C-alpha cells in the first residue's frame, strides 16, 4: 500500500526532505522504519537512535510497534519541545 511519510525537525534535516510517498508492505511503524533505513545513509543517520524518535499515524501519536493498518499518513520526529 501507499503511505505519505512526513519528517520533522532534525529527522527532516538529516533525510533532506519533509515528505514523500512510499510503497510499503510493512506491518508496523517499526517495520516501515526498517524499510526506510534501507533506502540510504541519510535515512540511517535520521533513524540511528530509535529511542530518540516518535511517530504519529494519521496525526495521532503511537508506539513504534503500532500496526500501520489503513493509515494514510505516517510521521517521524524527535521528542516534542513545545510550550
Amino acid at each position, binding site marked *: 500500500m501507499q503511505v505519505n511519510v*512526513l519528517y*520533522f*525537525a*532534525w529527522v527532516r534535516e538529516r533525510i533532506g526532505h519533509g515528505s514523500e510517498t512510499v510503497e510499503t508492505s510493512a506491518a508496523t511503524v517499526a517495520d516501515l522504519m526498517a524499510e526506510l533505513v534501507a533506502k540510504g545513509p541519510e535515512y540511517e543517520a535520521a533513524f540511528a537512535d530509535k529511542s530518540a524518535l516518535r511517530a*504519529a499515524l494519521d*496525526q*495521532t*501519536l503511537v508506539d513504534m510497534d503500532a500496526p500501520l493498518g489503513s493509515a494514510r*499518513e505516517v*510521521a517521524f*520526529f*524527535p*521528542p*516534542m*519541545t*513545545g*510550550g
Partner: protein
Amino acid sequence: MRIAVQDTAFDPSVELAGFDACGGGAVVTFNGVVRDDTGDLQAMEIEHYPAMTEAALRDFADQAVARFNLTNALVIHRYGTLKPGEVIMMVATAAKHRKQAFQGADFLMDYLKSRAPFWKKEITASGADWVAARGVDEDALKGW
C-alpha cells in the same frame, strides 16, 4: 474554549481582557517567553506539524476542562521565527475555584511541553541547534 496556532505575534494582556471566565471565580494565565540562556541567541525557530497541532491542543484542552471542571480554557501557540523576549505561547484557564484553575493550567503546560507537535531550534552566531527534550518534562506527565 479557544485554540490558536499562529505565526503572528499576540498581546497576552489583550487576550486576557477578552477571556471570559464563564461564571468561574478564578482565572490563571501562563505565558512562555523566548529565553536567551547563552546571551547570544539571535532567534528561535519553531516548527510544527500543521495537520496535527490544533487537534492535539484541542484534545489537551478538552481533557483539562473535563478533569478540573474548568469553565473556560484558552491556548495560543506560535510557530515561525521569534526573537528573544517574544511571547511563544499562552494558556488561560478559568474555574470556580483557584486550585482547579492552577491545576488545569499546569496540566495543559505539561502536555504542551512534551505532547504537542512543536520543535524549537535556537539560532546563535555560532550556528543552529535543535532544543533537546528534557527528561524532567517527560517525567512531569507521569504525575497526571
